[in-house]
Structures are given as C-alpha cells and as structure tokens.
C-alpha cells in the first residue's frame, strides 16, 4: 500500500518520523494518540521510527523529528543538537518548543531562588527555559498548548503530498466569530483572542473561557491597542501581563509592559 500511493500522480512521501521530548508535559505527543478516529490513517502517512512514549525499540534513522518541550538543561541542549544533526526537518511541537511555554514563567525569577524554593539545599541543574529556536534551526512550528490535532493532521497530509504548510496569519477572533460565540469582553472576561494567532478553532472562547495566547502573536497583532482595550474593560495590568506571559509567545511585550505604568494598574 505504502509504495504505490500517489496524489494527482505525484508520489506520496512517507517520511520516517521520530518524536522527542524535552521539558514538557508530553501532552502534545499524547494529543497525537488522542486522534482515535483518524489514528490509523494518520499512521499510514508516516513511518514512526521513534516514539518513546508509545513504543519500544526506536531507531535513529529518521527524516522528520518532532520535538516537544523547551530546553532547560545542558543535556537537553546536547540531545537537541544531536536530533537536529540527524533530522532533515525539525519540527517544534507545541508552545513549549516554540516559545518556552509555561516553563519559561520561571525565567522571571532569580534561578537560584527557583531551585531553592522547590528543592531546598539539594543541588539540581537547570537553566533558563528556552524555545528550540534559541539553540537550533527550526524548520516548522506547530503552535498550541496543546497542539490542535486537526491542524497537525492537515500538516501531516501536506508533508506527505508535498504541499506548502501555512498557518493562519489572522487572530483567534476570526474563528471565534465564525463559531458564533459571544465575545468574552461582552461577558466581562479578558481574552487575548484579538492578538493571538488563530488555528485552534477558538478553542477556549468556544467554552466561554478567554484566550491566554498559547499560540503566540498573530501577524501584525496590535499589542499596544490590545492593552488599551483591556484597560478600558477594567482589567488590571496584572491580568494583562498574566495572560501575555503565560506561554511565552508574547514574553518580550509582557516584560516591556511590566516597566510601563498603565492607568488602572494596581
């Protein structure tokens, strides 16, 4: 079956893929197994050669490496470099890999204090949490905390047939409106939808929960105006920063905001 496949006469590429994880909750990988309906079709598109969370006996001969998690320790840097060296395509899987994810929240503290707070006097090794891009070249980013399985499936299809991969440039609001949701600002809830890159099908607003920006900034997102709006709707500077800094996608802007005084900041 595998060899004969083609699309419009163009042979379908069945890549040998491997999955790796650095500092993360491994949820993004799990999300792949969570595609129960389509898992067999999904697996027929790729040859999984390394997936520690689900299989024993992997090999190091792969073309595409999906790396989940952020880099927080020296041995992870080494592992990442090694994977980069072997993979033709390196995919950053999820917000931790793309932006540092929730892990990077510790970067706002003195690293020694962080270690002491959790481990007391026991020595542990840990560095600033970094996205993969800080260490190696990343070929493709799959955003989200966790990743959206539909989106990943689309990406896998495109990889297989050799079609370019595109993520929406517009913000979550586009999907939110299309889903017929009531705007959370109308309900008195903060939401980063207007500046966050779409692709999650406005997952959180669909459940009447505001967006926390896990997919990072939309192209041309108007961050300054977003801050003005959050203020106008009565949200404190702290709330704005909490959301902006949560997944690391807006961390520069968030730290910039920390130094600016907003009108109703507490």
């Amino acid at each position, binding site marked *: 079956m595998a060899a004969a496949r083609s699309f419009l006469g163009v042979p379908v590429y069945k890549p040998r893929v491997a999955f790796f994880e650095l500092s993360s909750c491994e949820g993004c990988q799990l999300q792949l197994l969570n595609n129960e309906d389509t898992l067999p079709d999904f697996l027929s598109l790729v040859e999984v050669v390394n997936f520690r969370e689900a299989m024993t006996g992997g090999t190091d001969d792969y073309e595409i490496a999906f790396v989940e998690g952020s880099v927080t320790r020296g041995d992870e840097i080494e592992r990442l470099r090694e994977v980069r060296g072997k993979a033709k395509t390196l995919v950053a899987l999820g917000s931790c890999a793309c932006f540092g994810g929730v892990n990077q929240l510790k970067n706002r503290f003195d690293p020694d204090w962080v270690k002491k707070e959790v481990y007391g006097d026991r020595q542990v090794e840990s560095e600033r949490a970094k996205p993969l891009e800080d260490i190696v070249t990343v070929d493709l980013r799959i955003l989200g905390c966790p990743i959206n399985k539909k989106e990943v499936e689309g990406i896998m299809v495109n990889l297989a047939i050799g079609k370019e991969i595109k993520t929406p440039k517009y913000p979550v609001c586009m999907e939110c409106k299309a889903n017929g949701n009531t705007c959370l600002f109308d309900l008195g809830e903060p939401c980063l939808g207007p500046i966050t890159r779409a692709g999650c099908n406005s997952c959180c607003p669909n459940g009447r929960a505001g967006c926390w920006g896990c997919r990072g900034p939309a192209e041309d997102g108007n961050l300054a105006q977003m801050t003005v709006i959050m203020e106008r709707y009565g949200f404190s500077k702290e709330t704005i920063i909490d959301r902006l800094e*949560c997944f690391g996608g807006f961390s520069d802007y968030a730290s910039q905001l920390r130094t600016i005084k907003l009108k109703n900041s507490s």
Partner: protein
Amino acid sequence: MKINCDVNVHHLTRVEGHGNIRITIRDGKLIEASWEVVETPRFFEAILVGKKWDNAPWICGRICGICSIGHTLASIRAIEQAFGIVPSRQTQRLRLLLKHMETLQSHILHLYFLAAPDFLNEGSVFPLIGSHPDVVLRAMRLKKLANDLCDLIGGRRLHPTTTVVGGFTMLPDKKILAGFKERLSAAVDDLMETARLFKTFQIPDFSRETEFVSLKGVDAYPFIGGDLMSSDGVLKNESQYRQMTNEYTVPQSTSKWSRLSRGSFAVGALARLNNNFGLLHPMARDIASDFGLGPVSHNPFMNNIAQLVEAFHVAGESISLIDELIDTCWEAPRQPVAPREGRGVGAVEVPRGTLYHCYDFDETGHIIKCDCVIPTGQNHANIQHDLSALSARYASEGMKDRDLELLAEMLVRSYDPCISCSVH
C-alpha cells in the same frame, strides 16, 4: 546457569517521562537494583509564586499531559478550600463525570498502548494495528468515547478550558450529554472484551508486603477530596496530607520520594481498590473477583487489573451520573469567588494515585507558597523497593539479562508512572 546479570535501561519507553533502570547481579547475588528518575524539573511550585489564584488551575494543568484534568481539578479544589467555596452539587457531579472520563481514557491508554504490547510481544501498539486490528479499534473506541465526553464537559480533552474555580464557564448541552449514555453502555461490552483479552495474559506472580495509601471513600468510591487512609491504618484529614506523603529528596532522582509507616508506600488503582473495595460498582466488583483480585493484593503487577476494574467502575457510575445530570434543572454554571488569606489543599485521585495541590494565599488571593505532590512521586520509593525485591528473587535463578530486563520494565510500567509529572 548464568548468575551474572546486567540490566541497563536508559530512558524507559512506553511510560510518560524519563527514567532509567539499572540492575547488577554478580554470582547470583544482587549488587544493585535502582530506579532513577532523570526528568528535567520544570519548577511549577516556584512558577506560581506571586501569581493570582486564577492562574493556578490553568498553569498547573500543564504539569501533566495525561492527567491534566485531575491536576486542574486538584488545583481548583485547593483554591476553593482556601477561599471557603463549596461547589454546588451540579458542579460536583459534572466534575466527577469529567474525572471519570479522564480515568477511563488514561486506564485504556495504559492497558492497551503501554502495557498490552508487553503481553503480546510487541514493541508498541503500532504493529498491533496490522496484527490485532480488532484490539486496537476497541481501544480507540473506548478512548475516543472518554475523550469526546471530556471535550463536551471540559471544553477540551487535554488541558481543559471550561473548568474554573467556582464551577464551569459553560455547561454541556443536555441533548448531547444524553447521547453519551448509549455510547457508555456500548463501552461496557468493549470493556468486557478487554477483560477477556487480559484474562489471556500471564500476570507475573510476585508479591511484596506493601502499605497502600488513597483517599478514603465514605459512601462512594473516592475520587475528589475527603479523608486520607493507608492500609496500615493511618488516617488523616485532607489538609494533613504532608503527614501522609513525607517528601524527601534522594540523589538518584529529580523527583522527591515519599514514605509513611514503612520504607515506602504505593498509591494508584491497586491502592484505591485495596482500600475501598466495598465501594466499587457491582459490575467492577464482579470483574475483580473474576481475576481473583480482592483486598488486599500485594502484587504490583495486579495494578493493571485494578485499572481494568476501575474502568468498569467509572463506566458504570458515569451512566448514573448522566441520568442525574439530565434530570437536573441547570443552575448558574459558576459561583462568584472572593479571595481571602489562607491555605487550601486539594486531594484528587488521578489515574496513578492520590494527587495533592496546596497553596498559601495572601489576602488579595496571590500565591505565597505552592506545593504539589504527585502520585508517581509517592510511588518512586515503592518502585525501588519492588525492583530490589524482584531482582533479588530472580538473582539466584539465573534469569537471562533480557528476561529480567523485560520483567523489570513491566514492573515499572505496571505502576503506569507519569515521570515528568512527578518531577514537574
């Protein structure tokens, strides 16, 4: 006869997170058997310091990708305890149903994807798609049912979105909810098939006297909140969880370890079942007796079966929960939250055992101190002790390296460890 043996498993597969097994046997004598946890710490407890209460469930859910719902609920419970919020019955029922579906999906994932390949002599579930398609499809069906219901109640199967302090941001559509009843009933048949499959597996016969810790059920098999108990007779209040867990650090692990009356104790499906057997759904009890599983079983490999039994329990109980929810006249989805100074503890039985979140708040509801104790963390010491005992028992029998390795791996896997979560 071979009496020297070296097992060295670097980054054990088919478990969540990173752990190593090392066993050295010389002349039939066990020199070393160790379970090392090498996961990188993510410092969640520090991350939360200074954050306002509403960040905690959202961030803490990210401790674990498998039991994110359990973490979110434990976090919410800790905050509600601290602020003196008592969730409405509607909220409690919805949370329990959500929790049950996480338990179901996690147990199925473990039974079929992580444990079964060992018994079917495969490296993973992937080749089973070709060789045992019916088995895989059944697993998918069960997992999908659980996940779909998580989507409906929690907004998303992984890292739920609707679960908040005080209740939910949105309530499920009753019509859709009702539709799940049928699927759950059908799932019971699939679970029966699962039981039949596991009946064919040879569960290793190995026991070691163990102390089992879990929540103590009163009128129901316990999942969210309540008193804590051990099979050695310790009984504590939820807020005294630290006297139950007694965490300490060890050099061989970035996860902290725990102990209670003995050198170690176990949490998880087997512990819950040992401690609360009488409260199981009748259907689940039948299955347990079918497998000869009753309180108190000291065979760690039976944790797999305990998970299977619990799968029956949650499926059965969920059907009644749905009935009750459909008959409820929806009230407001969430209560208002008024932060106050104080400490709150949330204990939740997640698939792998008792999970605790504990926060100290200042009067504005900002976190001063945070502590999360993860089930796998509590199990590490017990895994170590089991591993030593198992290796010692087979040391003199002259087992092949590969056989001992497999058995040791199976032992660790039977705990269904969630390592990255234990390190967090």
